[in-house]
């Protein structure tokens, strides 16, 4: 799983003069910036929505829909609202500049532009975008563990369900819950509890596959979204996670503290009834509760109406 923010470097130029597109592309190429262009506002808005560029250079004097109108529409649309806009203007009056900035543009460049100035203003605009990207990413991360948080999981679960159904692929969801976590907190204090949460999170993240989405679901509960994964493969992943948590060494005042987790796995292929986010979570939860009832530190899967034990404290997988 990747939580890094890539460097923003895609610029969209909306200007009715094609020679301006070419000029900007030539001037920004050395910065590693890719430039696409549209000659009018309507197409420009459409492209901004589909491609979500990192920065828009917008001509004020466009035919039909002028630059200010285009700016307003971009700022109204949820998909383009946060893309920084720099106005390109041949108009050097104070009025036009102020109007553009008031409409939410981050900057303006007067045509004809000096290349050093263009580059510097574009760089500044992209820095703004990068900070926004980081903030957006932060808002989807769990502060304590660095895993994805619940809002991100909910959103991602919806989009992965759509993809899974469209392409007829299985989507697995594993719920994991640290065993007797309240005891850990009560016995060793909340600071140690935090260390356990972080340690378990690290095991889950490092032992999951790259394509898996590992999230803190809340409290001491975690969720792992397994894309393109049937129950059989998900079981193997789960067993690896369970063993890695069990083998993780936690120490409190130089004394080892045993930490384990219980797991429940469900897959879209094995649900009865309609496949929804709620149904998948409910099925994985049911399997998890069965693991708790069965003595913890084990995995159960939800296969249709049945909950089946697959590994762990009474497992076929465990030898010796």
């Amino acid at each position: 799983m990747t939580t890094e923010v890539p460097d923003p470097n895609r610029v969209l130029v909306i200007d009715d003069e094609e020679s301006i597109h070419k000029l900007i592309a030539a001037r920004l190429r050395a910065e590693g910036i890719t430039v696409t262009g549209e000659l009018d506002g309507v197409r420009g808005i459409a492209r901004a929505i589909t491609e979500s560029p990192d920065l828009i250079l917008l001509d004020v004097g466009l035919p039909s829909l002028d630059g200010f109108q285009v700016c307003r529409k971009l700022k109204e649309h949820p998909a383009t609202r946060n893309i920084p806009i720099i106005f390109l203007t041949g108009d050097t009056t104070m009025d036009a500049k102020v109007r553009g900035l008031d409409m939410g543009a981050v900057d303006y460049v007067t045509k004809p532009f000096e290349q050093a100035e263009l580059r510097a203003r574009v760089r500044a605009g992209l820095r703004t975008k990068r900070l926004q990207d980081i903030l957006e990413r932060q808002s989807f991360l769990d502060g304590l563990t660095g895993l994805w948080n619940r809002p991100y999981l909910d959103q991602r679960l919806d989009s992965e369900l759509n993809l899974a159904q469209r392409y007829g692929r299985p989507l697995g969801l594993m719920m994991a819950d640290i065993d007797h976590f309240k005891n850990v907190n009560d016995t060793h204090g909340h600071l140690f509890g935090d260390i356990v949460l972080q340690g378990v999170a690290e095991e889950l993240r490092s032992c999951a596959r790259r394509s898996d989405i590992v999230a803190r679901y809340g409290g001491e509960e975690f969720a792992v979204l397994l894309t393109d994964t049937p129950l059989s493969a998900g079981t193997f992943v789960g067993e690896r996670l369970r063993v890695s948590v069990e083998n993780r060494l936690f120490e409190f005042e130089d004394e080892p503290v045993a930490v384990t987790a219980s797991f429940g796995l469900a897959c879209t292929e094995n649900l009865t009834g309609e496949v929804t986010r709620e149904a998948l979570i409910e099925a994985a939860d049911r399997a998890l509760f069965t693991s708790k009832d069965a003595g913890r530190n084990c995995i159960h899967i939800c296969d249709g109406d049945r909950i089946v034990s697959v590994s762990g404290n009474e497992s076929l997988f465990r030898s010796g």
Partner: protein
Amino acid sequence: MDPIRSVFEDDPDMIDIVREFVAGFPERMTTLEESLAKSDLAQLQSLAHQLKGAGGGYGFMQITEAAALVEAAAKDGSDLPMIKEKLGQLFEILRAVVVPEES
């Protein structure tokens, strides 16, 4: 008039698009003339505006300055001989532009 050269003609990032820009001058001049013949001052103004914005970026500040005068005259719109005169000066500049041969 002395030959006019782009200040970027030695810039390898720029020379190809400078050539392309210059190759488009005859077509621009035709359209400008047509707008004047039709007395379509709005179009004339917009075409001059585009040249004004692009010229300097391609290293031809003289084009930006001359096109700005055409734009202003067309915007005012009252004095047709004045527009013609300014357009003539712009054309002289466009015709004086030279670019290095492709090697």
